[in-house]
């Protein structure tokens, strides 16, 4: 059962037979009401990913097998599955690295199953929408913004780590609270809330707080940390959520002053030396009403 990622693969065997035990279910009841695990024997060369193996099965054994994938390189976040006891990206998981003769593949837990390995992610997307994943300016309305925001490297690194989220939803499958509490936003949306709260350009803390400071909100997280173990991009959502709790303690409970948001670079900087060969700012593409 346990797999050691550092264990050396026996490359002397060019191709090894591995059984993929795949969960099948569809709404017309082909596989029974509760679905069924079906074995597929796949000849696996070294380097073959789970996604490659699924494609091989579809081409050679059973063309009715369904899953979702797009980029096959770990950037689109479509191919999340529950592989060998963990939520993983099928395209980022090599079959032989799991060191098992039989590998069980199920749809991601905590999402409704549409068919076979395809799940409906709308729960995450809806919660993500609710936390307003964009920069909110309350003091300076967008039409008053006539330049660039100033942000130092340090200020960038503060939220950069959290901004690489794929919306693959693996973290939601790992989370014990998501497993039972429908109203809980989950690690992905909460992590993204911090990504914007930590952005010096953002002024939306109070607005987002309404979404998360309630009895089914952020405090139903108990730092199990499974989301951070599952995340394929090092977003570390468990970290983001605890930092957001700290921010809530600081600003909403202790009453610390909300830090000032990033200022605009002056539109006309008389004393600034402009680097040569820098093209002028392009004209506005939207009519500027004054």
């Amino acid at each position: 059962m346990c797999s050691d990622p550092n264990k050396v693969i026996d490359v002397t065997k060019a191709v090894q037979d591995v059984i993929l035990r795949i969960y099948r279910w569809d709404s017309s009841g082909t596989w029974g009401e509760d679905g069924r695990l079906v074995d597929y024997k796949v000849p696996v060369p070294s380097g073959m990913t789970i996604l490659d193996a699924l494609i091989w099965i579809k081409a050679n054994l059973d063309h009715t097998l369904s899953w979702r994938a797009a980029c096959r390189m770990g950037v689109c976040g479509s191919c999340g599955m529950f592989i060998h006891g963990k939520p993983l990206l099928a395209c980022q998981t090599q079959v032989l690295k799991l060191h098992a003769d039989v590998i069980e593949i199920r749809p991601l837990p905590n999402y409704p199953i549409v068919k076979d390995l395809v799940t409906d992610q709308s729960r995450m997307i809806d919660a993500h929408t609710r936390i307003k994943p964009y920069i909110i300016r309350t003091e300076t309305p967008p039409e008053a913004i006539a330049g660039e925001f100033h942000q130092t490297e340090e200020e960038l690194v503060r939220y950069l780590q959290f901004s690489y989220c794929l919306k693959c939803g693996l973290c939601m499958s790992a989370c014990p609270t998501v497993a039972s509490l429908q109203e809980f936003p989950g690690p992905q949306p909460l992590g993204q809330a911090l990504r914007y709260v930590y952005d010096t350009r953002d002024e939306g803390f109070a607005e987002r707080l309404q979404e998360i400071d309630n009895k089914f909100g952020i405090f139903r997280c108990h730092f199990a940390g499974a989301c951070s173990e599952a995340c394929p991009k090092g977003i570390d959502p468990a970290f983001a959520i605890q930092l957001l709790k700290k921010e809530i303690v600081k600003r909403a409970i202790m009453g610390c002053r909300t830090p000032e948001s990033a200022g605009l670079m002056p539109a006309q900087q008389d004393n600034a030396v402009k680097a040569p060969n820098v093209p002028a700012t392009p004209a506005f593409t939207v009519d500027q009403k004054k």
Partner: protein
Amino acid sequence: MKESRLWFWHLISGLALILLLGVHTVIQHFDSILTWLGFIPQAAWQSGGHLVGSLNFQHAVLPRMQSVSMTAVYLLLVVFGLFHGLYGLRSMIYELKFSAKAKQVVGVIILSIGIAAAVYGVYTVLAGHLNPPLGG
């Protein structure tokens, strides 16, 4: 009250409980060591049976009831213990799968249990201290 404040006190009461329940647990469970250190008199072990050491009425329980500092520890332990524990219980129940309306009812029930138990607990601790039984 805002959820953030309730949760904040859940954690703060947890910290306080380390001290309060720490004292209580050491007294109840490390009583051989406490006797060796001289905090519990040897006489507490002489009656035999299971009411020895920290459970001995005359030599352990009664002196604690009469002690002002132990009474203070128990008062805080009742209040913090109940708040911390019942908030945790409420948190678990809220995470179960059933309607938000029914959860509201559960919230009120837990609050009532908490208030009733706190009143009862504070009363017993104070009554024991102000009016200790003379044994026998």
